[in-house]
């Protein structure tokens, strides 16, 4: 695990960034295969697929922070709620 010991890298953080990188690569491939069409859904602004991913990730981050700040329950529930928020924004935003 020499790679992870550099700057005290930890496996959870590496997995987190791997997920973000996978999302960005996936979105790039999706965009190349089928270019996005801006649309107006539940959000009060016209968004592209990339905009919705950004808003969804921001929402997920805030849900996680709110969960951490407001409860002592396990963070996994907050993470799941954040993931549901991200999916909702991507689908209906």
């Amino acid at each position, binding site marked *: 695990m020499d790679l992870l010991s550099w700057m*005290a890298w930890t496996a*959870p*953080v590496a997995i987190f*960034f791997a997920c973000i990188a996978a999302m960005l690569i996936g979105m790039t491939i999706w965009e190349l295969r089928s270019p996005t069409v801006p649309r107006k859904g539940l959000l009060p602004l016209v968004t592209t697929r990339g905009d919705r991913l950004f808003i969804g990730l921001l929402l997920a981050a805030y849900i996680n922070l709110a969960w*951490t700040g407001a409860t002592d329950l396990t963070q996994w529930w907050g993470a799941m709620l954040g993931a549901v928020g991200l999916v909702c924004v991507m689908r209906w935003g």
Partner: protein
Amino acid sequence: MSVAKPVNQRAWWLVLPVLVSVAFSALIPLMTVVNYSVQDILSPSQSVFVGWEWYKEVLRDPELHSALVRQLIFSAAVLAIQIPLGIALALSMPREGWRSSLVLVLLAMPLLVPWNVVGTIWQIFARADIGLLGYVLTQMGFDYNYAQDPWDAWITVLVMDVWHWTPLVALLAFAGLRAIPEAYYQAARIDGASRWAVFRHVQLPKLRSVLMIAVLLRLMDSFMIYTEPFVLTGGGPGTATTFLSQYLTQKAVGQFDLGPAAAFSLVYFLIILLLCFVLYNFMKNVGADEQQGRSA
């Protein structure tokens, strides 16, 4: 018959150096901060994974809540004063000739002063015993002392920021006004438009892009203000002018709590990101709706 233009993807290779430079200067440091925010750094070679512990500590810290409220009030006050004042200054500036050049040079001067020097200038200027401002206010009967009175400290920090940064808004607005073609003014004159109508329906819509830049720059800058209040008041009296960045510095450098400081930095980053995103979209949509309504 139309001929499809071949798409040249080679331009992406030209962007590669910038991407690599951004990765090293922004992305990797940000990743490092994320990494530190979930660890307790005991020594350079010793660290313990603590998960969300620092976030919990930071989000439940009453001092952080107070600093955040102060910061939001300060940034809102900065925008509420500097944007209208900057536009008013730009509108009243001479458009051409030596007067225009002179006003531009005078306006740009506060922007050339380094931030710590601005703090020092105002520290001396506002002192009741030797400073011109403090002395005049005291002679006028005001009980003014920015080192002891929180309200005086707030007003002084705010006025100092207005003095330092309103010229930036004015210069941006002035550049935007200069870019409006004369034909628009001629058409307004033919229609008999009043001075206010010209501002509301010609100048303000045309200033939308530069004002968006001005608002975002001032929001981000005011949200990250550190040096000037640090030099002027040291965050005091008490914690009256301790804003987020000063509180962060106390944690990271003063107490060397790298884990909580990293968690705090990320929360700070998310707040700025959200505020900028909301303001950017709000300003973009307000202008766009108006223009759509006019063209319909």
